């Protein structure tokens, strides 16, 4: 489709930026309440996330898994599905990746890494297919099932990490995966790896699937109006299952990134809620792949800069969580406001 500037909804693009600014403004009130200087805190937050090459590298490293989980949640959103199970799918993906990384010790890197990544995507996708099938065939709401499956994934991976895959050392973690399965670091000493490229490629692929293929047309149609999709000869059940599988596969990639790039082993409950943060990233990115990248970088920056703020000022890092929550709040509120405006405008 040709790009038509007249039909572009500028408010839709401007709104997330306004939400972030509002969140920072209200956040500064909290900093004042805590008895600190917001200007100083935000200065540190910024310089320690974008101010130097090292800082920016840390931001990118924190952003990478969020791109994957953000894409996962966004993709399901496009089909009208709320995948709260990205966290569990991430763990299943991580489990597959660590198993491949530990088991196949003789493979060359250029086969071993793609193999591990693929295994992660497949297991994450299959894990998400379960709620997908339950939704498509029995009409069971996916929110319930994805939450339930999160817990199963947590304890299942606990079992493997403490049991069959335990590394023999004291902690609840596996042994380290072999060198050939580890992702290459792009700018040592930072831990940014080639996963960054994979994340960007994944975003482009998601964009192409959603907006340039028949599959994307059908998935979005189901998400927007399932009755009309059915009328248009679209198999609604099939598309729901497919959308959940692709969503789960993307979340599985986040698990692979954590295992193959960051930890090089599976540590019990390693994820700092990356799957749940994916919901926030998808919301802020308006379920658009490129929006997701920007939102992931923002959340990565808050994470990276927040740690430094904690170290260098007397503002606690919990404040970052408050700001993240405020961003979500303003994104949600903004959609309410926009819906209200639309209703008044409709004549």
């Amino acid at each position: 489709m040709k790009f038509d500037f007249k039909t572009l909804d500028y408010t839709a693009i401007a709104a997330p930026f306004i939400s972030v600014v509002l969140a920072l403004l209200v956040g500064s009130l909290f900093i004042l309440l805590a008895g600190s200087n917001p200007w100083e805190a935000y200065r540190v937050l910024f310089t320690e996330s974008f101010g130097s090459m090292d800082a920016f590298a840390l931001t990118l490293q924190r952003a990478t898994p969020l791109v994957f989980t953000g894409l996962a949640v966004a993709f399901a959103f496009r089909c009208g599905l709320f995948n709260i199970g990205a966290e569990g799918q991430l763990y299943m993906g991580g489990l597959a990746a660590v198993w491949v990384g530990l088991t196949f010790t003789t493979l060359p890197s250029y086969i071993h890494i793609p193999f591990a990544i693929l295994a992660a995507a497949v297991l994450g996708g299959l894990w998400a297919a379960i709620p997908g099938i339950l939704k498509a065939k029995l009409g069971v709401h996916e929110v319930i099932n994805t939450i339930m499956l999160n817990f199963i994934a947590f304890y299942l991976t606990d079992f493997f990490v403490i049991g069959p895959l335990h590394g023999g050392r004291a902690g609840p973690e596996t042994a380290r995966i072999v060198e050939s399965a580890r992702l290459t670091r792009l700018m040592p000493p930072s831990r940014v790896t080639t996963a960054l490229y994979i994340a960007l490629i994944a975003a482009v692929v998601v964009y192409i699937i959603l907006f340039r293929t028949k599959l994307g047309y059908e998935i979005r149609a189901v998400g927007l109006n399932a009755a009309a999709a059915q009328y248009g000869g679209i198999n609604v059940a099939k598309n729901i299952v497919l959308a959940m599988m692709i969503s789960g596969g993307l979340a599985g990639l986040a698990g692979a990134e954590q295992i193959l790039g960051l930890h090089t082993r599976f540590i019990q409950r390693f994820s700092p809620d990356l799957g749940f943060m994916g919901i926030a990233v998808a919301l802020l990115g308006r379920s658009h792949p490129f929006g997701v990248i920007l939102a992931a970088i923002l959340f990565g920056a808050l994470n990276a800069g927040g740690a430094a703020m904690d170290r260098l000022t007397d503002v606690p890092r919990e404040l970052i969580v408050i700001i993240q929550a405020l961003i979500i709040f303003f994104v949600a509120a903004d959609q309410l406001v926009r819906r209200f405006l639309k209703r008044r405008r409709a004549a």
Partner: protein
Amino acid sequence: MNQILELKNITKRFPGVVANDRISLDVAEGEIHALVGENGSGKSTLMNILYGLYEGDEGEIYVRGEKREISEPRDAINLRIGMVFQHFMLVETLTVAENVILGSEIRQGVRVNYRRAVQEVERLSQEYGLRVDPHAKIADISVGQQQRVEILKALYRGAEILILDEPTAVLTPQEVEELVRVMANLKAQGTTIIFITHKIKEVLVASDRVTVLRRGKKVGTKVTAKTNEPELAEMMVGRSVLLRVEKTPAEPQSAVFAAENLAVEDERGSLRVKGIGLEVRAGEVLGIAGVEGNGQSQLVEAIAGLMPVKQGRLFLNGQDITRATPLQRKRKGLGYVPEDRQRRGLILEYTVADNLVLGLHGEPPFVRYRFLRHDRAIQRNAEELVESYDIRPPQPNYLAQSLSGGNQQKVVVAREFTRTPKLLVCAQPTRGVDVGAIEFIHQQIIAQRDRGVAVLLVSAELDEILSLSDRIAVMYNGEIAAAMEARDATEKKLGFIMLGGRPEDFREEREEGVLDEV
């Protein structure tokens, strides 16, 4: 008569359009004033300004001779102006009386005095002849009764000027007659009514004066008794309109579609189509008349493959399609204009171009290498159809939701009619569509028939059935109550059977309904 309301030079601009362009309107006390115009002509906008939902950019409002600012509905209510919207605002789980008093309850301490409320509702419904049971739950009463509750709500709040926004759009012909009676009663009690519609017949039956709007401007005001259908149609559309469809006698060929002993259940599992047999031949229009809710919706949805068949069989071109998927049926030559374009027929958040390929989106030339969209082909298809079906605005990249109802319907019709169908199922093809578009859609249906397509037309509008059909079947309570050649059918005869009368009991000299007086 005294002037109770005067609007002077009301102007309202929305981004890109002037919805009301210096519209003036005067309404006399105790009259029924019809406000007509095509969709998007600015009727609802004007009334929403009067009711305080929108703020006009320019212009003045005088109520009972005094200039007034109405910036929210509360102001309007205080001026004794009430409005009944097309989409009702009722709480389904509450009773009629509870809904009427909602928001202005009669209190006794902190408790609501329900008994007083019931008395109040009974008093009002007697006074104005609005029969409705105050204890009934909204969910259990008909749409016509729900509308009466909305009117009661306005009266309860003291309305003396009552705005009815397209009140007949949701009603069956019988309920329309009832509403016309209710309006006469209200008028007799001194209520002034502003009545929005785009159906000229209702204007002629129900109103004292009529004001016509077109594209945001006032065309003129007429005394109803001194005008007629062609004149009003021309004022609305801006050119003379063919109210009758011109067509030659049908030349039907062999049967294209057949249903044998078809039974269909609705979502709740109750039997709505009870063993129907039908046949539609190439080159003819079979019209199915009937009061809505007698199984027509389930019949067409089952034919389209969107509802499971409980019993019986369906044939298209001699092939059994009883269990075929919607896509398989499409490929065999089924075109389907669903009765609810917004829920079924369109994806409102998709562009016009994307909607014009819905159902064809998986087939060449709209797809390359079996999975990639071919945007240029989609665009070209849209440009052609927008032009040949006169879809306005002619912008393939606009979202379907930004189009008026009539143009949305043209998108559906364009898509379904151009895939060279063998069987066309059209359910309520002109519902909520303005006069100009109705004329166009009717011509297209006849053109398809003349091309040798078998057309199954389901409509609640008897005019439409009578002017388009070659054969007519009447559906009542899930069965075909009667079938006849179109030349043997009259409006009265069909109406009689639609209400459950037996065809053999029909006499030409039956008592006349209100709508027949025209």
